[in-house]
């Protein structure tokens, strides 16, 4: 039966793991109006239900999966979910997003959000079959990798079409940056959400649904989808993305001199062509694969046909892991990068954090701080194949030196007592594969991102456009269009943060909706109206994005975050890009002026970086003011 909700499935499923019970309740209408979906739902509920100082690996933490109003419809690229909890890696907001086919199945089973509470004393997997929920013993799956787990669960249920998210052995072993994996390699990898899931005693969640998703205005919806199809198919980035996916940007980043190489000691990698997306497409890719309802399928199935890894096959990788396991660790061999990425997927690790830990250790070794003995006798020179692959395995098993790296780079530096100044993270989350000295807006994005050092909260790609006229037109500041300039970046980042929050709330693909500029706020409003029946203008849509950002900021503020934490590692603030990185040479990151501009744009207190009472009220969040005061958080009126 079609539900009385349009677009939404209209229900929330709470799984009480301690008692192995479940409760279904209607999706709150206020949550829809205020937060739209996906990441918005999760962030708001985390603020309401996870008090400060909750132990991320304790019973009180909650793990939430949420999807959006367009998912399950035929809206192009609407296939994604966010999985959120307090992070065991950063102790602030944990949140990660993935595509594949899991999220639409949630909707067909009748849920917009699934919340895992409490924890089970023995390992379980959960099977949600429309309204039936079973908690099934999974002790026989203990230690299995993501692929084996997914396969076993599907076989036991006896239906290849059930959708599964799984955690790997790294998560079970308590590595603090293990992810949740849908369709084997669609990784919600960042901030340790797999760790939370496994520590709650859940190895996998399987879901199957038979319900329909209705849209409020089918004719209007159909027309809008046709417009989107046209915009996407005719877009200049269509074919580059279709052939190479995100790996297409490796060579341009190298050209720009901001491809993080050997742990960000330089911005050009002499073997860039060997490990590029072009090389992958020419020699390894055999087939295009896509997420659910995607008309720009950008994932690639690859096979290694000769060499040491002959016979290895898999899917992806995205730019980040490919580049991290080549340039960042100084490895010139693309096959080793493919192998490393494959291992991370199977063991259930965040490839970016893993690569940061390994490349950090390599730099510590080069500087003479780390000895071979401390590293279990491994040769820690740049790009050493055996070291890279052995360490991935050791991290996942928490063995020897791997145990030290398994808590993330910040903790590793604390434990070893050196390398803190070159531990490249923001708020405990390891920085992604683009040098902030060559991309100031992106850098500012890492500084202020609510989950720590990551670009997916903002993606201010506009600064790569080299089009100052358009910068003046759109933001009133020509420099917003120039990557090495810092002026205007506060304004730019806050605009793009709001936009990303909306794409994450709608659970559409950021690559398409945002990076290809096909789903701006006004059009989002139209789409929301056609799908859900709720009238919304572009301004209102952006306001929801802003509300999501502020709710997340309040969560961080409650955990003690303030201006002092909104920073980058010293390397980016003090060491200019080296001469050889010609197109970014000499550049450093101008933190203070950018941060001031950003806070001003956000309406946050310049001194503390905390939202002002005026801003909190403007967004209808006044109910949190008393709570913040009780916690002695310094609030300014305006």
């Amino acid at each position: 039966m079609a539900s009385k909700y349009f677009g939404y499935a209209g229900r929330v499923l709470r799984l009480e793991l301690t008692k192995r019970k479940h409760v279904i309740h209607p999706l709150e209408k206020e949550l829809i109006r205020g937060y739209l979906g996906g990441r918005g739902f999760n962030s708001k509920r985390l603020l309401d239900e996870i008090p400060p100082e909750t132990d991320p690996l304790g019973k009180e933490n909650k793990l939430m999966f949420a999807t959006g109003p367009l998912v399950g419809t035929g809206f192009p690229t609407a296939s994604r979910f966010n999985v959120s909890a307090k992070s065991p890696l950063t102790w602030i907001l944990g949140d990660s997003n993935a595509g594949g086919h899991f999220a639409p199945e949630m909707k067909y089973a009748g849920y917009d959000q699934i919340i895992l509470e409490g924890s089970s004393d023995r390992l379980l997997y959960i099977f949600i079959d429309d309204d039936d929920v079973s908690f099934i013993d999974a002790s026989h799956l203990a230690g299995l990798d993501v692929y084996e787990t997914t396969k076993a669960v599907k076989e036991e249920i006896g239906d290849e079409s059930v959708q599964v998210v799984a955690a790997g052995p790294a998560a079970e072993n308590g590595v603090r940056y293990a992810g949740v994996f849908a369709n084997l390699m669609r990784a919600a990898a960042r901030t340790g959400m797999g760790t939370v899931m496994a520590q709650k005693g859940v190895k996998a969640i399987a879901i199957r649904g038979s319900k329909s998703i209705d849209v409020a205005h089918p004719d209007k919806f159909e027309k809008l989808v046709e417009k989107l199809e046209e915009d996407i198919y005719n877009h200049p980035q269509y074919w580059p993305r279709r052939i190479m996916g995100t790996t297409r940007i490796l060579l341009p980043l190298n050209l720009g001199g901001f491809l993080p190489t050997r742990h960000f000691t330089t911005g050009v990698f002499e073997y860039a062509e060997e490990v590029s997306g072009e090389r992958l497409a020419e020699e390894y890719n055999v087939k295009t694969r896509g997420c659910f309802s995607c008309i720009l399928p950008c994932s690639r199935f690859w096979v290694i046909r000769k060499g040491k890894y002959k016979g290895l096959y898999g899917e992806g990788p995205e730019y980040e892991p490919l580049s991290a396991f080549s340039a960042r660790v100084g490895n010139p061999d693309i096959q080793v990068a493919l192998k490393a990425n494959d291992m991370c997927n199977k063991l259930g690790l965040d490839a970016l954090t893993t690569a940061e830990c390994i490349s950090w250790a390599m730099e510590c070794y080069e500087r003479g701080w780390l000895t071979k003995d401390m590293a279990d006798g491994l040769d820690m020179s740049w790009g050493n194949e055996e070291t890279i692959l052995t360490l991935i395995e050791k991290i996942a098993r928490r063995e020897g030196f791997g145990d030290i790296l398994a808590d993330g780079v910040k903790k590793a530096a604390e434990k070893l007592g050196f390398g803190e100044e070159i531990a490249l993270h923001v708020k405990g989350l390891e920085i992604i594969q683009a040098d902030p000295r060559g991309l100031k807006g992106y850098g500012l994005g890492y500084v202020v991102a609510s989950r720590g050092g990551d670009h997916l909260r903002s993606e201010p790609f506009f600064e790569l456009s080299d089009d100052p006229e358009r910068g003046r037109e759109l933001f009133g500041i020509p420099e917003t269009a120039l990557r090495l300039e810092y002026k205007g970046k506060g304004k730019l980042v806050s605009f793009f943060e709001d936009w990303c929050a909306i794409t994450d709330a709608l659970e559409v693909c950021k690559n398409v909706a945002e990076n290809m500029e096909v789903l701006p706020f006004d059009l989002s409003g139209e789409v929301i109206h056609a799908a859900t029946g709720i009238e919304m203008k572009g301004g209102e849509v952006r306001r929801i994005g802003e509300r999501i950002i502020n709710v997340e900021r309040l969560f961080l503020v409650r955990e003690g975050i303030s201006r002092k934490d909104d920073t980058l590692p010293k390397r980016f603030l003090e060491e200019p890009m080296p001469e050889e990185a010609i197109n970014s040479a000499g550049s450093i990151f101008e933190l203070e002026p950018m941060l001031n501009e950003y806070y001003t744009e956000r309406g946050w207190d310049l001194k503390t970086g905390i939202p002002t009472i005026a801003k909190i009220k403007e967004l209808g969040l006044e109910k949190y003011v008393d709570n913040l005061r009780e916690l002695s958080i310094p609030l300014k009126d305006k």
Partner: protein
Amino acid sequence: MKVTVRFIGIPGINVNSKKIFADDTPRVKELLEKVCEMFPEIFPSVDHIVDRFLVLIEDKQGKTTNIRLKDGLRTVINKGESLIVMPPLTGG
């Protein structure tokens, strides 16, 4: 003179660079016209290239500048400089 044109990330064209013969100190427009002749299916016109791709000039040292920040299509290519054509660079 011979001008090197590099294509990055364009499906249908190898990463390898191509040499284009042109008059001495040609303008970008002239070179792009030749690029269109070489790959008519990918680049039907010069306007198409400018609309949908980034065109950069790279000097001897490897420093690149978008032609948009110079004189656009009228920018003159000097000896030792080369041209790069690639799709717009947005996130990953």
